[in-house]
């Protein structure tokens, strides 16, 4: 056990593989240490909502049996992983951060969860998040906000705040989050970890509780680029259960991490740097300088439709959400407020069950889809979405990758922005464009502000070019970019 107790909080997937191969520890020993550590540390951040020790130990035992029998235990053998609580886990409570699903025990597993376990991953538990993944600060969870492990009086970002926090805190080696408008990348940037939003359809959405189906992604979060790449490798690929999952073959991401980024053309979209808070801008300028030193060619580009992205996103995402969330009506999903008539029961259940942010989005989404408004709002937004996607298509005919900020500011204080929903929505500007276009994008750490708060740098590439994105991020990491 000594090899583990000396640093379960800092292990990488590579370390776990070496430790298991050298018999420094067994998968069961690692799972037990990791669970103990995570449970003991959790009160500091509230990042886990619940743990799944039985499932974790059963998975670890399978890995140990395979190792003993000389079989391949899988690429993620024994790796302690946390899952955002909007991704269903059979037999393990899945609340979506909502009171409505306080007692919901899913009868099936998400495809990504099945694939993680098939690769030998050990699921420690479920992480806190904004209710139904709606939020940018994790303050919209019915189970209390998550505290940023880097600065406990600050938010970890959202909506995958718990997943970012456990990776930063070391209470899991890696985690799955979900991203609809930046919910993986923004918390990754706030907590100083790596967060990946793959190409839309790269990872099956089966078992990801639906928020906005044309925008939802499952994405990996980890402390290193190779770890995030390995996680994506394990969960990516076509799934019959999700008709929008892509057929494109999944390349060997790790093999592509060759450090060679000489001549890679990088575009800096000028719209993303205008009015950027100076410290965040400075950190990113330094990151770009490092990429230049590595041999990348940097040039300015323009993505002119950027300023319309927030408005476009909050029409499409809320419209889809209002429809997806209609299913929580007191009939199938655990919580009901009794009433005389069926329609009063629906209303009372939903009125009592949803938190303020979910109600706001359901209302906005219902409004923009309501009679007489469809063309003015939803159809208009779909057209603007096409313009945003076109901007990227044009840009990628000139450059191989785009580098941009993730958030206009670093982690803010808990409670600081909760009363101004529009300001909170506007802060999603740099991340929602990637979701609207459906392209791969990721956040990598890019040093810290004077106050010690992490800053994230975003890398975006064209559809299915996760390979190029990872290669660039990995070269940047190996050159010391994370420290700034």
């Amino acid at each position, binding site marked *: 056990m000594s090899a583990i107790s000396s640093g379960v909080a800092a292990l990488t997937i590579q370390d776990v593989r070496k430790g298991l191969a050298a018999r420094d520890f067994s998968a069961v020993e690692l799972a037990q240490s990791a669970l103990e550590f995570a449970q003991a540390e959790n009160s500091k951040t509230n990042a886990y909502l619940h743990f799944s020790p039985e499932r974790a130990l059963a998975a670890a035992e399978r890995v140990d049996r395979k190792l003993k029998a000389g079989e391949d235990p899988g690429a993620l053998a024994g790796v302690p992983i946390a899952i955002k609580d909007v991704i269903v886990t059979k037999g393990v409570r899945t609340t979506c951060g909502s009171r409505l699903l306080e007692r919901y*025990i899913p*009868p*099936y597993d998400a495809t990504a969860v099945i694939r993680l376990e098939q690769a030998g991953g050990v699921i420690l538990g479920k992480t806190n998040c904004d209710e139904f993944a709606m939020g940018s600060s994790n303050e919209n969870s019915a189970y209390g906000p998550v505290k940023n492990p880097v600065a406990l009086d600050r938010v970890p970002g959202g909506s995958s705040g718990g997943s970012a926090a456990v990776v930063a805190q070391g209470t899991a080696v890696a985690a799955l989050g979900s991203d609809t408008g930046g919910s993986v990348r923004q918390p990754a940037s706030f907590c100083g970890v790596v967060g990946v939003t793959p*190409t839309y*359809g790269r990872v099956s959405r089966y078992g990801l509780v639906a928020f906005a189906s*044309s925008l939802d992604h499952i994405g990996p979060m980890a402390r290193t680029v190779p770890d995030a790449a390995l996680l994506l490798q394990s969960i990516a690929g076509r799934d*019959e259960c999700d008709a*929008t999952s892509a*057929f*494109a073959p999944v390349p060997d991401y790790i093999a592509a991490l060759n450090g060679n980024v000489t001549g890679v053309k990088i575009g800096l979209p000028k719209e993303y740097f205008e009015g950027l808070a100076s410290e965040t801008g400075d950190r990113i300028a330094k990151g770009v300088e490092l990429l230049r030193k590595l041999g990348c060619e940097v040039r300015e580009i323009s993505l002119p*439709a950027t300023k*319309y992205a*927030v*408005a476009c996103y*909050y*029409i499409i995402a809320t419209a889809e959400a209002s429809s997806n969330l209609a299913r929580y*009506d*007191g*009939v*199938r999903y*655990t*919580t*009901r407020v*009794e*009433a*005389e*008539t*069926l*329609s*009063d*029961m629906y*209303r*009372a259940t*939903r*009125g009592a069950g*949803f938190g*303020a942010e979910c*109600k*706001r989005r*359901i*209302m*906005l989404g*219902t*409004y923009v889809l*309501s009679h007489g408004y469809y063309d003015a*709002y939803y*159809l*208009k937004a*779909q*057209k*603007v*979405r*096409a*313009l945003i*996607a076109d901007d990227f298509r044009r840009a990628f005919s000139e450059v191989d990758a785009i580098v941009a900020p993730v958030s206009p500011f670093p982690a803010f204080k808990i409670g600081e922005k909760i009363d101004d*929903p*529009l300001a909170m*929505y*506007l802060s999603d500007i740099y991340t929602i464009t990637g979701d609207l276009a459906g392209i791969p994008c990721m956040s990598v750490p890019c040093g810290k502000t004077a106050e010690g708060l992490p800053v994230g740098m975003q890398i975006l590439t064209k559809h*299915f070019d996760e390979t190029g994105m990872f290669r660039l991020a990995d070269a940047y990491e190996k050159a010391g970019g994370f420290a700034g």
Partner: protein
Amino acid sequence: MKITEKEVRYVADLANLKLTGEEIGRLSKDLDEILTHIDTLNELDTSKVQPMAQVLYDAEENSTLREDRERPCLDNNAALANAPLAGAGYFKVPKVIER
């Protein structure tokens, strides 16, 4: 004003949401602000743009169609296990039809 309290009540009705008076006041203000921001989209001429309903990339036609074959579906007990009220293999709800 982009939206009145009366409209907020109407939309809440469509969305099957029971809201308190305080919530209606708050939502009127929030939605008004957000809808005002959304109006910036009108600056864009989109008359010649095809709407984008889904992320599209190159793939063979019909490639998302799978073979039609039987698979076991969720069994009745599992499907009902999370119901607040169930009986005789069904979800139970307040009476809808009077005899």
